[in-house]
């Protein structure tokens, strides 16, 4: 098996409970490198909780998560970002009182001027700052946000904020991009360009995992679909397979409403 075939992210026996509720209970999940994987499921299926566990924003009760062959269970989010895993949020986190370009520059890792003492000596970091700014401008161009460059991020529309958040995430030069509902609240015109931008990521050597409700979006860009319901993974497959999967359709339409899903026969 070559490196390219090895999964970039592996979750084994991951459990998270809130009180008596088993919010996440995933036996095994492998995410393939340089592919786009969609994580879908009805409301309350545990997608966002699972996302938080994978990105270090929440801690697992049981189980192990591996990123690129390294165990990362319990690693805080800022270290994961340095390792090459970056995430966005369901409720967009544009930093309102920072300009767009400042938002972008924040995303760069290993900045010399981010150390307290170095901050007092501009000569030590201005060169790197200029390089970062160039890189930021190039990404803004690609995301069609150049006209907002010097505006406060707080003045952006909801869709523009989604774009900014993804652009900012790319400033960390990640190998794994985790997008929590990247299309929510984005108008159709922007949605199409956002889809194109996501589709381009595997070509740059980046793996994408995204949470989404909209099945059309999933069908269009995902290489692989993972379906969650009641904290468990109930099905996996290509978009075409998932479309016709009985358990998935039931989970969404509620044919087995009130029944224990583990008793439902998977196709």
């Amino acid at each position, binding site marked *: 098996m070559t490196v390219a075939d090895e999964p970039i992210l592996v979750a084994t026996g991951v459990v998270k409970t809130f009180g008596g509720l088993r919010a996440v209970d995933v036996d095994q999940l492998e995410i393939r490198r340089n592919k786009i994987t969609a994580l879908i499921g009805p409301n309350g299926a545990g997608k966002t909780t699972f996302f938080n566990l994978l990105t270090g924003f929440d801690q697992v009760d049981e189980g192990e998560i591996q990123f690129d062959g390294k165990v990362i269970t319990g690693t805080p989010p800022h270290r994961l970002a340095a390792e090459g895993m970056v*995430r966005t949020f369901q409720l967009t986190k544009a930093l309102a009182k920072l300009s767009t370009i400042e938002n972008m520059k924040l995303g760069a890792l290993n900045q010399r001027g981010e150390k307290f003492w170095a901050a007092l000596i501009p000569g030590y970091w201005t060169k790197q700052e200029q390089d970062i700014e160039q890189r930021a401008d190039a990404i803004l161009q690609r995301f069609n946000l150049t006209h907002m460059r010097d505006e406060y991020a707080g003045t952006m529309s909801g869709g523009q904020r989604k774009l900014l958040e993804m652009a900012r995430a790319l400033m960390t030069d990640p190998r794994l991009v985790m997008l929590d509902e990247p299309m929510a609240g984005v108008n159709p015109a922007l949605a199409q360009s956002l889809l194109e931008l996501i589709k381009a990521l595997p070509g740059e050597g980046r793996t994408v995992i995204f949470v989404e409700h909209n099945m059309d979006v999933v069908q269009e860009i995902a290489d692989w679909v993972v379906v969650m319901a009641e904290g468990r993974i109930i099905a996996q497959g290509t978009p075409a397979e998932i479309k016709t999967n009985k358990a998935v359709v039931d989970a969404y339409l509620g044919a087995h409403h009130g029944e224990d899903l583990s008793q439902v026969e998977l196709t």
Partner: protein
Amino acid sequence: MDWGFIFERSFSAMIGPEVVVYALAAVGLNVHFGYTGLMNFGQVGFMAAGAYGVGVSVFWLGWNFWVGIIFAFVYAGVLALLLGLPTLRLRADYLALVTIAASETIRLLARSRVMRPITGGVEGVNQFAGPFYDLSPFELGEFYSFGPFKYLGRDVWVLMVGWTLLILITLMVRQLMRSPWGRTLRAIREDEDAARALGKNSYFYKMQSLMLGGMIGAVAGVIQVIQKASVQADTFNPVITFTIWTILIIGGPGRVWSPIIGSSIYWTLIVFIENTLRQLPPDLRSTLEDTVQLSDFNIAMLRFILVGLGLMLLARFRPQGIFGSREEMALDSR
């Protein structure tokens, strides 16, 4: 009414020792709240740490005065570290609770009988600032006039040193906030989780911010007790913290020069109102005494009431403060 006297006092208050002390404390609070979003309701505790740090180490331990000053900063830094360790991982309100409690604990402990051998109890500490005044190029007991400003020689010396420190520290904070370090602080203020997701150790940055602002607060405390030549526990009460907040809000949080301008406006108003009320014509004065019981004692209270009224008007008509931008303010409500 002696308007000449009123204006002389008001002008002297405009750049007087209180302005320097409170502006410095507000620079520290600005680092905390204005740039990092930390809710510190115990800035006076850091002033007290600086004050006692130098007072106790010099008067009771017999240390060299300058060593005592360095000790005061280190002490305030350690205090910030201890307050931050348990609270900075939690939501912002916990820091507010812990800081206000800590500042009162410091005051009550310092004035307690048990601590008397160290802090001097309610009498406090004095006779420690000699080496500072030995360096004064001015005659300590003589009055000096500069245009509309008039001060005692010892205060002129305090002001020279104080303003130099205030300007230098303000410029340092400006440089810090223009750097990537400052950008990270502002990002944490806006959304801590976003900063964490982008690889920033927000806990570490918040700790640095708390320590920096606390140590700047200690500078304020050191200058205050040098000017008064004594450390009194009860001068470090929570009202001071809220005065510092008022000053920061007048100027506008998150702006480099707002602590200085806010402090200057605040103290000019306080002194102007007080002296005007004391100089009212006798017949008006007696009428007010009868109707609203405006005794000498109540004048001191009334000036705070009027400042409070001013603060309400500010909140209504210019909520962003003098330097803040309305545009930025509007972003909060989106």
